[in-house]
């Protein structure tokens, strides 16, 4: 289905770029001072405000929707990762130093597992956000997909089709969240959810 493909693309891109960006900004005080105000600014900007530019730059179809979903997910994900990195208790770094964990091992064994629960929560939130945005994007910049179906039903005054589409949107959204929630079942992140 077109909508699912767009969400996967935009959200996937946001994950691939947002988490590394968050790690970088979380570790480097200088980078944080330079870029954090812009990240915050962009996060406060509704991705829907970008719709005219998205159509201007990417036309109609997959590309503008993917671009809008990326914008919706990237900034919150980056911010969540930054805060997760910045709040790792210093005791874990002391443990790392005393047990000879440096460089790559420090990243793999301390930093990444320490932020995993918070990042997974952020993935669920931004995943849901992406699903909201794809409908809006397709209403204005699509020729197919669920958002376009909503718009089409409206134009045809077909309230029955509209309600049916809404049911589909809600059901798929819940299924997606269930899928992402599976990540919280990984044994090595359980500590972040139960205490």
């Amino acid at each position: 289905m077109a909508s699912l493909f767009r969400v996967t693309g935009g959200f996937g891109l946001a994950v691939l770029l947002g988490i590394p960006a968050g790690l970088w900004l979380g570790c480097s005080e200088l980078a944080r001072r330079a870029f954090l105000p812009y990240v915050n600014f962009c996060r406060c900007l509704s991705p829907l405000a970008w719709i005219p530019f998205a159509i201007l730059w990417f036309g109609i179809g997959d590309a503008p929707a993917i671009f809008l979903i990326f914008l919706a997910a990237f900034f919150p994900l980056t911010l969540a990762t930054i805060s997760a990195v910045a709040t790792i208790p210093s005791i874990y770094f002391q443990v790392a130093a005393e047990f000879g964990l440096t460089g790559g091992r420090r990243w793999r064994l301390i930093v990444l597992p320490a932020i995993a629960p918070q990042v997974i929560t952020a993935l669920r939130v931004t995943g849901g956000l992406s699903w909201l945005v794809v409908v809006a994007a397709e209403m204005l910049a699509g020729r197919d997909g669920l958002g376009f179906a909503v718009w089409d039903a409206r134009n045809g005054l077909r309230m029955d089709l509209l309600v049916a589409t809404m049911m589909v949107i809600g059901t798929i959204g819940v299924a997606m969240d269930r899928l992402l929630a599976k990540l919280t079942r990984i044994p090595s992140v359980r500590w972040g959810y139960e205490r």
Partner: protein
Amino acid sequence: MSDSGPSTPPSPRPSPLEGEGEKLHPCPLRLERVGHAFDSLAVLRGVTLEVERGEFVAIVGPSGCGKTTLLGIIAGVLQPTEGSIARVGQVRTVHQVSGLLPWRTVSQNIELGVDRRSTSAEANGQLQEMLRLVGLEAFAGYYPHQLSGGMRQRAELARALAGHVDILLLDEPFSSLDYLTRLRMREEFVGLLHERPRTVILVTHDVSEAVQLADRVLVLSGRPGGIRCELQVESPRPRELTQPEVVRATHRILTELGLEHDAAGNSPYEI
């Protein structure tokens, strides 16, 4: 009992580790008039301390007297703002609330402590031995949040004692446990140290814990903390809480801290 000012002379006690055949550092830790201040707040002043290899030193004092700061300086997490510190060899800390990595199981945590130069068979042997020593064989695959407080502290002790690290720092390791568990852990810890001798520095506000475990107890004064007095405890470990020397030493320290009174009815120091 040797009442000494801030400059403590090195004690002539023979180290139990001497003659073990390894390369020996007779004095793995030396602090020279160490002081520390957070901005304008002086928390430590003029602490001079020499610890011998294999010695067990306990540091007690009222809360806020800089005990944890002193331990941070010894661990190398904090730089002293005055004086100097010389440390030979590696240090490992056992923390007050679990310093175990919550995303690793008990055995994965202890694995971190095992000497990395050993082969995987050796490493596994060491891991199994540590699990056996602390009695956690059945809980090897559990995560820290699934364990009781006592088990967590046992696992952390096992992690710190695995491998060949010279100095063990204990930051109130048993203070989050209930009274009975605490007494049991002291006994177990004496047994563990017997198996794996280390130079130990214990920071605690539990006077009886210090007296029961340590060769030498240092009493810190209130902020800014300095060494107020020093006390040797000679009887061999394990010591019972109610044996005469332990009771006497506990009384002496509590008197120093102004919490009990000497025969003349005066307390030398009010907090």
